[in-house]
């Protein structure tokens, strides 16, 4: 953990609200996207992000600085996700309108196709991967977090992290093959119609 972050944590613990806000601000985009990719639902991601920061605020005094701050926040977010997932595991609503994409330079056709590709990826994550595989895949392949940090976030051994990541990637790949994605099947046009070069 870097010295600036340590100072912010120390100041925040002493009640300095601007340090607290700065500390949390650095991670809110990451936490929102992490929970969105885990749930596939912008409203649930919004709730989970809010709950994560509220819980972090309440428990900041118990943070021991042994793990990085992002690791600690991620652990809170994922535990909240798991709790909610256990309560309503089958709930799923993924709307294309929720996958907002900056698109000023694109023509309308490409915007639609890109949006559909976003939906396709999120759909595969939500519908075809068990939660534990989704967690490890999102952390590693979207947020580029190291094996060591993933193990700390998920509370797994390094060996379990490697095994689960391997299986998650296999499963994710297999879904695109089964769905005859253009990238994998030259005689079939998927929704992106091969326009997006892969």
């Amino acid at each position, binding site marked *: 953990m870097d010295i600036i972050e340590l100072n912010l944590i120390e100041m925040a613990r002493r009640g300095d*609200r601007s340090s607290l806000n700065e500390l949390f601000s650095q991670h809110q985009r990451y936490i929102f996207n992490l929970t969105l990719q885990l749930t596939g639902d912008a409203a649930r991601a*919004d709730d989970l992000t809010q709950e994560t920061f509220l819980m972090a605020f309440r428990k900041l005094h118990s943070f021991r600085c042994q793990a990085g701050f992002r690791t600690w926040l991620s652990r809170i977010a994922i535990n909240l996700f798991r709790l909610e997932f256990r309560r309503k595991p089958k709930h799923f609503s993924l709307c294309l309108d929720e996958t907002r994409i900056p698109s000023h330079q694109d023509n309308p056709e490409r915007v639609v196709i890109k949006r559909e590709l976003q939906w396709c990826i999120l759909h595969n994550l939500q519908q075809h991967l068990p939660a534990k595989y989704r967690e490890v895949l999102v952390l590693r392949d979207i947020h580029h977090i190291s094996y060591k940090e993933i193990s700390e976030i998920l509370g797994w051994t390094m060996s379990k992290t490697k095994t689960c990541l391997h299986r998650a*990637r296999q499963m994710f790949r297999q879904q*695109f093959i089964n769905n005859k994605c253009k990238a*994998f099947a030259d005689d079939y046009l998927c929704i992106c119609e091969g326009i997006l070069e892969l």
Partner: protein
Amino acid sequence: MYLRGDIRIMNCTEAKALFSEFYDGELNQEITQAVKEHLADCQECKEEYKNLKKSLKILKKLKILEVPRNYVSFNQER
């Protein structure tokens, strides 16, 4: 896995089990070389590894969105 001269030789099952770590550069030099040697010789594994890389390339196209609102303004509430 066995040694042929100085080169470690692996079969398809062993190679496939290591694709994920190979992709991430997490293997040591010796094992990395053994996977490379296997991929150079085995068309089926080469195809499977290519598909793995393609699917992860798709995943990288998932956009990182801006937050819809500010979650961390704790000035007034507590």
